[in-house]
């Protein structure tokens, strides 16, 4: 693939050298346990232990939270997380398990939390010692997120929480949850407030976590039921009734459109999992045959692989052009496309991989004859998680149409 050389500042160049050196000594190596395709499918304590050890080590090495202030456990630097991410990707490290903490909770707590709360929560979030989850969706509140009903009742300086959250990834490991709660039933948007709540310490005592099984057969997300959970008012982020605005900070970062670079490691999966980018379709198509010829010789498959490669390249070039203000018509036009495009491109790639595999695409994870260990059918099934989670593709198109193009609101 076309690998774009970036022109680093001298500080970035020094940090890049540092990251390379650090990674050459501290890469955790091939995992002893099977690691799922994404942190959202972490199921066992062994998987979590291995990944938490890696995140802690990377945090101690200074590769996590580089751009956050020192007072909250960050590195106090500027525009260096991007460099660390580049190098971790290049070194094919494992991913970080605290993906919701790093990607969503940290920016939200930083921008909306009180100082004492930030200083208490963020260091262990960065180190991965405290895993975080996100309590947004409910059985009755999906794409229409502002209709959440889980209620916080004021009781002196405390809040009593009752309700039901769903699709809560990592809740079974989480110490903390970021949560959108209703504090006023008479106003849809202005009746929402935003809190952090301790989950693990309240299990069996106001909080119940029940695993949900995904269409893939994996677990990893849950429903979380609150029954008279009492929390302190100091766990509130921002003002009462400002929950929707706070949630927008979370969602912007979740969709890759926030202003903080989220710490991201990546690449390494267990030995058999080779699903990744569109370029990997080429080797797959060269290995397999149809009608006695290499799949890679089929002109239509060739065309479809090129379509995927071009889309993928275009998305990565978007990131690059997104830094040239003279070539942008609207500041959110590129950032708000990230989540939509990365999830849809991943789906198109996995779908094509299955067509390339032909009959063998019927073989799933666990079948010894499955090409690539059955990872492509698994990736295809999982891809629907990505086009639905964090705001469905349909919701993303509404947001782009309304906020960027200025079309009339569809609600």
């Amino acid at each position, binding site marked *: 693939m076309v690998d774009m050389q*970036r022109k680093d500042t001298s500080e970035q160049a020094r940090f890049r050298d540092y990251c390379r050196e650090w990674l050459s000594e501290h890469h955790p190596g091939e995992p002893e346990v099977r690691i799922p395709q994404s942190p959202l499918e972490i199921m066992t304590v062994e998987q979590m232990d291995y990944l938490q050890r890696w995140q802690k080590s990377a945090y101690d090495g200074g590769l996590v939270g580089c751009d956050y202030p020192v007072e909250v456990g960050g590195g106090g630097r500027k525009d260096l997380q991007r460099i660390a991410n580049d190098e971790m990707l290049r070194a094919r490290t494992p991913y970080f398990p605290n993906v919701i903490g790093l990607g969503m909770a940290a920016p939200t707590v930083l921008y909306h939390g009180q100082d004492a709360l930030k200083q208490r929560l963020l260091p262990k979030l960065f180190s991965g010692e405290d895993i975080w989850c996100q309590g947004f969706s409910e059985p009755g509140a999906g794409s229409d997120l502002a209709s959440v009903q889980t209620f916080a009742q004021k009781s002196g300086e405390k809040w009593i929480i009752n309700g039901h959250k769903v699709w809560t990834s990592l809740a079974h490991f989480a110490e903390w949850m970021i949560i959108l709660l209703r504090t006023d039933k008479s106003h849809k948007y202005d009746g929402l407030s935003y809190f952090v709540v301790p989950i693990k310490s309240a299990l069996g005592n106001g909080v119940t976590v029940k695993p949900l099984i995904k269409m893939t057969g994996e677990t990893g997300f849950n429903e979380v039921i609150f029954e008279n959970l009492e929390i302190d008012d100091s766990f509130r982020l921002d003002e009462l009734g400002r929950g929707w605005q706070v949630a927008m900070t979370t969602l912007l970062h979740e969709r890759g459109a926030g202003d903080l670079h989220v710490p991201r490691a990546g690449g390494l999966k267990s030995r058999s999992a080779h699903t990744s980018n569109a370029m990997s379709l080429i080797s797959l198509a060269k290995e397999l045959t149809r009608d006695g010829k290499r799949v890679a010789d089929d002109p239509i498959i060739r065309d479809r692989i090129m379509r995927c490669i*071009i889309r993928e390249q275009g998305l990565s070039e978007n990131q690059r052009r997104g830094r040239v203000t003279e070539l942008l018509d609207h500041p959110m036009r590129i950032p708000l496309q990230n989540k*939509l495009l990365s999830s849809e491109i991943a789906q198109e790639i996995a779908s094509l991989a299955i067509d390339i595999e032909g009959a063998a695409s019927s073989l799933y994870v666990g079948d010894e004859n499955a090409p690539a260990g059955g990872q492509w059918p698994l990736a295809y099934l999982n891809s629907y998680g990505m086009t639905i989670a964090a705001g469905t593709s349909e919701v993303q198109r509404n947001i782009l149409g309304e906020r960027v*193009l200025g079309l009339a609101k569809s609600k």
Partner: protein
Amino acid sequence: MSSNTYEFNQDAALLKDSARKFFSEKFPVEKLHELVAQDPTLGRTPQSLWFEELWQEIIELGWPMVAVPESAGGLAMPAVAVAGLVEEFGRAAFPSPMLSTLAATYVLSAADAIGPLEDICSGEAASLAIAGSKDSWGLASTEVTYSNGKLSGTAHYVQDVGKVQKILVSAHSNSDLQLFWVDLRSDGVTLDLDTIVDLTRDQGRVSFHNVEAVPISVKGLSVLAEAMPKIWMLVSADIAGAAEWQLQTTVDYVNTRKQFDKALGFFQAIKHPLVDVMIKVDETRSLLYSMANAVSAAPEKALQLSHMLKASASDLAGFASGRSVQSHGGIGFTWECYVHLYFKRQKHSQMLFGDATWHRARLADILIGPVTA
């Protein structure tokens, strides 16, 4: 921040900005329509309709020589700056020999043909006469031949030929493909304009009857191969600019037009496809500037990026055009509505120098390797 990425510097931004202002002040779309859409008659006699006075102003601004090397007296601006400028020509759908002259410039530069490049700096416009009647866009598709010091035969699909003074001709000889610089007014040269769909361009056939010509290069194939990625870049930039016009014009329309008591843009059947147009525009523009940057910063990547770019741009041209007319509804299907002007320009650009499937097939040969026997 921008100094970190591409060479899209202040000069490039200034050039793009002044072109945008130039066209919005001097060439609003009403003027385009008035100029090129006078006669809707099917089967009308082909004409080359343009504002020569505006082209003269453009010559005085120096834009046709932006890509000419300094050694020939040109401005030698980087490809990213040229891409930015051409986007504005596309946005205005400006009828002119700009694209053709820039295309000829890149071929002449690859051949190091100082004399012809000086012609361009002196204000002469030029076009490529390298296509035959039957092949798609293979580099050796010309049906013109060169023997005993004379050119014979007919060159096809010559762009903007009604607006240029010079043409760059490729011809088969008993050695390699050779390139020549020919004045259209030379003895033995005849020009026939094609009747084409696109109202903002002209195109024609140029026939040679024992024409004496100035040789430019005896290594025609390698010279053309060197220049083609930049020529695909030019057409893609024009497409990107025109597509952004189609997008914004359609957005304005669906924000104004009401049905069922709502602005059309309220309906997701309208909204989501327009978002998809925006996404395609951005894909093409991002590939455009990366490719243009690669011309100087990473030449080994320019060829594959240029195939990606033109494939993306050609798809964009078709998609944005379809959605612009469809979203306008009944009025969009009429001659009086401006969207058909861009629809037709885009359909022309879509196939010009290779459509999307053609470019993806070339890209596949690079990335996968040729089809095995």
